């Protein structure tokens, strides 16, 4: 196989700053054409922080950031992600210092979760929101999170946590 052909058979992904070159195929460690991005992240790369709730694009648990936008990784085929920059929950804290992202810290301080299963997805949507708008209104926070299924009902604490982490100087209560 020529180098060019090999390249066609390879998916290049940057996940949390780390580069991966994954062969397309059905061998162990390869990406099958039917593999979703969630599957690749969890099963191939071992990044199990991204959760599968419904696996049909309805609950938001699998949300990751791809090329700056929050996406449902269970509805995204890995073979369509060549060249993509992906950030998952594992990439949210400061890799060098281990310091939590302000959103994560605010979730800790506000106990903005109960069972925590939906938390990684919610955090990734919230991160994406504040990348666009560092000081979102409560309505924008609600809109940004409207696709996330949280059954314990931590919605009120989550909104407060995002608000607290993103309030402008002097806006804190």
């Amino acid at each position, binding site marked *: 196989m020529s180098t060019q052909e090999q390249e066609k058979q390879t998916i290049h992904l940057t996940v949390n700053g780390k580069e991966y070159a994954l062969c397309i195929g059905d061998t162990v460690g390869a990406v099958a054409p039917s593999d979703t991005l969630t599957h690749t992240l969890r099963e191939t790369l071992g990044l199990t922080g991204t959760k599968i709730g419904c696996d*049909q694009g*309805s609950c938001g648990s699998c949300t990751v950031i791809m090329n700056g936008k929050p996406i449902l990784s269970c509805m995204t085929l890995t073979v369509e992600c060549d060249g993509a920059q992906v950030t998952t929950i594992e990439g*949210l804290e400061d890799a060098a210092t281990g310091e939590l992202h302000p959103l994560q810290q605010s979730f800790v301080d506000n*106990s903005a979760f109960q069972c*925590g*299963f939906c938390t990684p997805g919610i955090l990734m949507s919230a991160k994406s929101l504040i990348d666009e708008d560092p000081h979102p209104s409560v309505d924008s926070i*609600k809109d940004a999170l409207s696709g996330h299924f949280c059954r314990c009902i931590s919605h009120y604490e989550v909104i407060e946590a995002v608000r607290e982490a993103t309030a402008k100087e002097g806006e804190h209560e």
Partner: protein
Amino acid sequence: MSKELRFIGKETPRKDARDIVTGKAQYLDDVKLPGMLYGKVKRSPHAHANITRIDGSKAKALTGVRAVLTHNDIPRWEWGLPKHMPVLDNKVRFVGDAVALVAADTPDIAEEALELIDVEYEPLPAVYDVEAAMTIDAPPLYSQYANNTYPNEAPVYEPHLLQHLRLGDVEKGFEEADFIIEDTCGYEIFPNPLPPEPPGVIATWETPGCLTIYTPSQSIAFFRFIGIPFIDMADMRAISTQCGGSYGTKNANLTPVGYAALLAKNTGKPVKVYYTKDEHFHSYSMRLGSRVKAKVGMKKDGTVSAISGLWMVNTGSGSESGPFQIAVGLGEVQLNLRCANWDLAGKLVCTNRSPSGIVRGYGGQELESSILPIIGRAMEKADINPIDFFKKNSVKPGDGYFWREGNWWTYRGVNFNTAIDKGAEAFGWKEKWQGWGKPTAVNGTKRVGVGVGVHSNADVGEDSSEATIKLTPDGRAVLYCCVSEAGLGQRSSLCKMVAEVLDMPLERVDMSPPDTHLNPFEFGLMGSRGTYAVGSAVIAAAEDARQKLLEIAALKLDVTAEQLETKNGKVYIIGRPDKKVPWHRILGLYRTITGKGRFEPDYSLCNFLMSFVEVEVDTETGQVSLTHVVNATDVGQIIAPKVLEGQLHGAFGSAGLDTALFEESVLDEASGRILNGNMVDYKWRTFTDLPEFTNVILETPIPSHRFKAVGVGEIATSPGPSAVLMAVYNAIGTRITSYPVTADKILNALGKR
């Protein structure tokens, strides 16, 4: 206690918070064992049928398939209350019932193999309605249960179980009544509590005599306790993973365990069975169905003089804990309906719907959501404000009630009327209540109404707990108690109690992993028992460890233990805190101290929650929106403020209040299939749909344990449904007597259809 509390009631991060926000928390599907296989289940397309022929040979021949099991290949393990649900049978009892099992190297191969299993069915008549099930002229679901009615037998571990509430003389009570209402009301929409994480289990036979399971159950000691008889008396070691939501549903459901354990036994490998969301909707247990035919006698002053009737409980195709749910429901109903004359009988019936299981609200939510609308009609006759009614009829110190095991208990807790008053004030009840069937406001086509619901549970002191605490010379404490983390923050709250008793930094208190082989018996996070029942055992263990430490220190320091105090891993003579001796100087480096604690069941205390709701009904579209909620409770002492707030906000989730607004499993009776069994068609509350919500939490010291607290989390879901029904009636002036109040029902009630 005069001493100021250091951790209890203070905001401290949950111990697992960092793991949750960084994605490190290990849920079931994040666990992989070496050599693990994947189990899948072939499901029935029929609601009721005999399997006349089944052949798995083609499936067995597929590469990567390690086992194919049908009912012909496995022992007859049964579970449930009463014991009746087999792992596989020669018949199916609901659409989605198990027909055959496959274990394979990958989930995809297992799925493929399911398609290759040939099955022939002989369909049987199916029945879904609780009353029809008792009279249908067709073979019963279980040949041993004539008329599809379960026998009234209690399990060995609770030989007396309250199944028929009898007190006083109802005939006399009805004679004394000024008003009598007879009505039927149902709460039978079989909603799915639907935790975000689907159910599942990993099973592995580490020795032929011991099955190890990894489970998201939050009650693994109970799981083991009921699991051992299920697996033919082999030993069972249960280890909890982080639980991605349970709301009771993952507590003790042995069905997936049966699949995984038999596949693991057959293949000699660990097997994971992890449901898809589709299976979660169509093949897992639901909330019970409940229908009450009741006669209620009431006096003009709001005294309930008699209640009689039949409570029909629809378990669907299987009963995980129906008799217990009846027992607890009948116990709970007395706590806010003080009445001297009762004759209310529970009846447990199976139908061809999905099986039922443990769900937050556990019988009580089902009973109260059915009976309170009938009581409301009597209140209306008596023209009594529901707030006044519940203040009169909620349990007061000195009142008595029968609890689930049939004994009579005298309540020794606090009077909850202050909580009712404070809640009413926060909600503005006085201004909003206009009388029965009268709207709070009419704004054009929109009509506003208010309602109230209530719930109490004496399970705060339910069942037994044991705990041990190990003190190590380096100034650390480890709590050994079989408690899992299911989202309630319970593990962290228990560590706070230990840190408080031993007056040491919270970060130096840790907890053993939830594993039945490491920890003493602890019944599990059922109901709201974490704070009082589990907490009491933990506190006792910490106090015991502290006492042992001080006794050893007393010998070294030549004083009595009573003269000593410990703080931050050091011991000092009271009055001389400058002379501190670290634990290692007392214990040496080669010793630990173990304190033990145990809690025995106590049903003389209960919790309380009242939910005030305001709804706005659009009379053009029939749409009902929830605009304002106030929850009022008295917990004695808050342990973890934000965690408690979260639990109470949980009112909407897990098949709670929203079952009155939009949640239901819609069944197609022609096929027996649930029509809205996916996350688009099954409605749930989103971030853009949040009403104003206030929790009013009082802290009147409750005589439980040294921190004067009781738990309340479980009951957050229970008062809501009947409150919504009441509010809608008040908004539109026409009574809707079934759940949920869909736009169709509203328009019908308004004569617009």
